[in-house]
């Protein structure tokens, strides 16, 4: 147990984290890409076309993992922010802020692919489907966190402030989703459930799981890379940075 705790403590030191991130980010990127490539290949060429939705069904293999990532990253961001606020751990503040752009990216993918999938299904580029509407609000929450982080000069205060906002956001997100679902049932009578109905044939699942795993691993790589960059920016001018840059 002791070596694990000591490793955690050491990881909080900026130079140690820099070395750790520099080493593991590329590995995570490559691994993530490979798993995603396997998943996408399966999604495009192996899985048969859905009898209801035809080939457009293949978009699900990007849309669903991205949607899950957009939610999971938001929750993780709030967890990092909470740890950073309670225990004043600088690395957790950095990690929380590094989560935001990646989460926003996945949210954007979810919205775009949802819209593209919707065009042949609904006939329009946008429908106020409760899940897509909640995704859109989630995007605004992400952008709010990023905007707030950029608006304050002191990086630590900025991370704490934006981190607090992410915690408030995570607490209210279920309420927002619930309210939008209620609103949708009130105003639209029937709901065209885009994603609920098709029971997936077991043969269709492996590429989906591959995409879920792949996006998670990619996220780790991106998180480490962004955290490393932020870490360097905050430590700019320190001796270890100058030494490391000289030898890079």
């Amino acid at each position: 147990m002791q070596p694990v705790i000591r490793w955690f403590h050491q990881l909080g030191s900026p130079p140690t984290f820099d070395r750790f991130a520099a080493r593991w980010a590329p590995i995570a990127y490559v691994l993530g890409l490979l798993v995603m490539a396997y998943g996408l290949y399966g999604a495009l060429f192996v899985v048969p076309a859905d009898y209801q939705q035809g080939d457009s069904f293949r978009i699900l293999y990007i849309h669903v993992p991205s949607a899950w990532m957009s939610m999971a990253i938001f929750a993780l961001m709030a967890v990092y922010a909470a740890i950073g606020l309670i225990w004043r751990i600088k690395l957790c503040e950095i990690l929380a802020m590094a989560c935001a752009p990646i989460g926003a990216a996945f949210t954007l993918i979810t919205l775009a692919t949802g819209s593209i999938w919707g065009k042949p299904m609904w006939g329009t580029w946008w429908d106020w489907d409760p899940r897509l509407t909640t995704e859109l609000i989630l995007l605004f929450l992400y952008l709010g966190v990023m905007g707030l982080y950029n608006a304050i000069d002191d990086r630590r205060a900025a991370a704490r402030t934006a981190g607090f906002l992410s915690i408030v956001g995570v607490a209210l997100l279920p309420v927002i989703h619930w309210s939008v679902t209620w609103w949708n049932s009130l105003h639209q009578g029937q709901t065209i459930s885009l994603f609920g109905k098709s029971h997936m044939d077991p043969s269709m699942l492996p590429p989906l799981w591959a995409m879920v795993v792949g996006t998670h691993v990619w996220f780790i790589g991106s998180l480490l890379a962004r955290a490393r960059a932020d870490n360097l920016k905050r430590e700019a001018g320190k001796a270890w940075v100058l030494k490391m840059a000289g030898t890079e």
Partner: protein
Amino acid sequence: MMSYQNYVIAAYAVFGVVLAWDFLAPRLQLRAQLRAARLRATREAARSAAPELTR
């Protein structure tokens, strides 16, 4: 059933473009930071080599 192919291509293209940005943005930041650090190191070295004016 019209050609869904274009939609599928569009969706996958969005995925690729956004992930490409997600990969490039931190790389560019890192490159800028390391470059700035290198320049700073050279300036520091030059400053310590040339003696400061003394009274």
